[in-house]
């Protein structure tokens, strides 16, 4: 759920990313996460390529609240819209917002963490201060407040969520950068007169990629939950755009007559988050040097 997400262990100098990715395929956790995410990715690709069985927005009053059948796999909702198509479009919408939000947060947060950890001094104090201020808000509340300020569309929702996750990326990258800058090969590079920017990008950044990748996977799961919570509260992408959270909200009153309207989006949102969590856990185990002997 959307708590204050912190990776529990940040080993000071992590493994380089490239070599450890295959380990993901060997761990049952990571592999099952990967499979789940691939399945849901196919679902959202169907939506992005307009190849869903029905249009998710077209209303068809005569066929409202039909139970699941061969024509409508997940049944229809109160306006006769196909629930399967709406769920697929909802997953696509959630995925788009989560990916854009986390991409923003990862890029800005990593840059912030790099600068703070590498330059220290005033830059560190300023970035640390901003991080503390953003951490002072409960995550969901900050996203909610920002979403209420903006003119809502999928992009502004993504930005609101991104702001919440920037400080997390700053915090998880800053520590390892601090210890990396004292390591001999980084000092050696400094003594050969390479520019600091080059050193950061060529010698420091590659060594924190594994931390960033794990954090991206976990942040994606929180971003999906945040987006779904916002749209449940009516502060996500405005209707009629299908969103998993607002579908569940609308299904509250229908749950006794047409349980499928709630079960379908509910199960899919849980699977999406479970998949991302498993993927994140699998990646973390794969990158953790302490597991190196085991796999």
């Amino acid at each position, binding site marked *: 759920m959307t*708590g204050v997400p*912190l990776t529990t262990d940040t080993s000071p100098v992590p493994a380089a990313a490239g070599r450890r990715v295959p380990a993901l395929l060997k761990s049952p956790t990571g592999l099952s996460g990967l499979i789940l995410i691939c399945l849901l990715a196919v679902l959202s690709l169907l939506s992005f390529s307009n190849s869903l069985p029905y249009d998710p927005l077209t209303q068809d009053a005569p066929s409202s609240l039909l139970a699941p059948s061969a024509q409508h796999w997940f049944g229809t909702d109160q306006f006769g819209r196909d629930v399967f198509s709406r769920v697929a479009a909802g997953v696509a919408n959630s995925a788009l917002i989560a990916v854009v939000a986390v991409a923003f947060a990862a890029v800005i947060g990593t840059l912030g963490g790099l600068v703070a950890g590498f330059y220290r001094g005033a830059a560190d104090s300023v970035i640390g201060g901003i991080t503390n201020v953003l951490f002072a808000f409960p995550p969901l*509340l900050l996203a909610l*407040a920002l979403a209420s300020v903006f003119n809502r569309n999928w992009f502004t929702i993504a930005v609101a969520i991104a702001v919440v996750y920037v400080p997390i990326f700053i915090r998880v990258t800053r520590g390892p950068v601090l210890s990396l800058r004292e390591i001999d090969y980084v000092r050696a590079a400094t003594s050969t007169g390479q520019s600091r920017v080059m050193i950061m990008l060529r010698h420091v950044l590659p060594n924190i990629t594994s931390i960033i990748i794990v954090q991206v996977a976990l942040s994606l799961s929180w971003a999906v939950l945040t987006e779904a919570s916002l749209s449940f509260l009516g502060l996500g992408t405005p209707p009629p755009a299908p969103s998993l959270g607002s579908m569940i909200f609308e299904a509250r009153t229908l749950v006794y007559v047409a349980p499928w309207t709630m079960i379908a989006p509910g199960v899919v949102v849980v699977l999406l988050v479970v998949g991302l969590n498993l993927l994140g856990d699998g990646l973390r185990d794969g990158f953790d040097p302490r597991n190196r002997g085991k796999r």
Partner: protein
Amino acid sequence: MRQTLTHNPLLRRIAAAAGTLLGVAVFVFIMLRAIPGDQITAGLGTEAAALTPAQQAALESYYGLDQPLFIQFFSWLGNLFTGNLGFSSRAQESVLDLTLRSLPVTFELAIFAIVLALLIGVPLGMLAASRPDSPRDGLAQVVSLAGLSVPAFLLATTLLSVFAASWGFNPNGEGFAAFTDNPLLNLQQMLLPAVVLGFGIAAPIIRTTRTAVLEIRSNDFIRTARAKGVPEGRLQARHVLRNALVPIVTMTGLQFGYLLGGAVVVEQIFSIPGIGRQVLLGIQQKEYALVQSTVLVIALTFVIVNLLTDLLYRVIDPRVRAA
């Protein structure tokens, strides 16, 4: 031993928290200024278009909007310090009064949720650690994955419909009862929301407990205690759990933010008149003064809780006290 003010870690921590709060105030102020329009258009809606320039100017000077931004900021900040958090025109009540009524409700909910989460999380985490990679460990992992992955709004909606439909248990259908008025009904009304929030934070507590217990068990002093014949129950309680408390308390404190955020969702679904619902109502009714002050109060609460967590773990862990 002489300690100067700047070297006292406690005072430094408090000063840092105060600095953060000032930053929070600036952030909230700027955020609410970024809204298209201002208090006037927000308050009047489309009718604002009918204002004559003179009326517009009069209103602007009434709200202080003709002042430079930093003066507006400091007069707002000054008001906050005197307890003036603004006025809610819908509720016809001061935001301070609204907050004084809603904050204790959310606190009660949060404490209830934390107690439930600890009751689920700590035993399950210890059980998982007692035999790693066994079925019981697997069970704990599944529970914690579910806690992390099932959205609060989904669990809340499901529980509400299942309990109301199958067992006719729907205390939240009645008007909210304060604990002081009707403690029995109040606890019934708080039960399901607290279960939802507690389930969400049980997950990190399970994981933290498991990791901490595994780490502590490998220490020499545990082997020594076992060798000198300390009974197993006493060993678990006094030697293992006592040491595992430090990370557990820290994790629980960190989860308070989740509780305050989750409260928005859960209070809305179960009609609990807490601080989360107050923010949401303010947002829905475009009462920005209410939103601004309430968000600030919540951030203040969160910062104070984090500070208290810090202090608490100084009490629990003598090593931190000495440092």
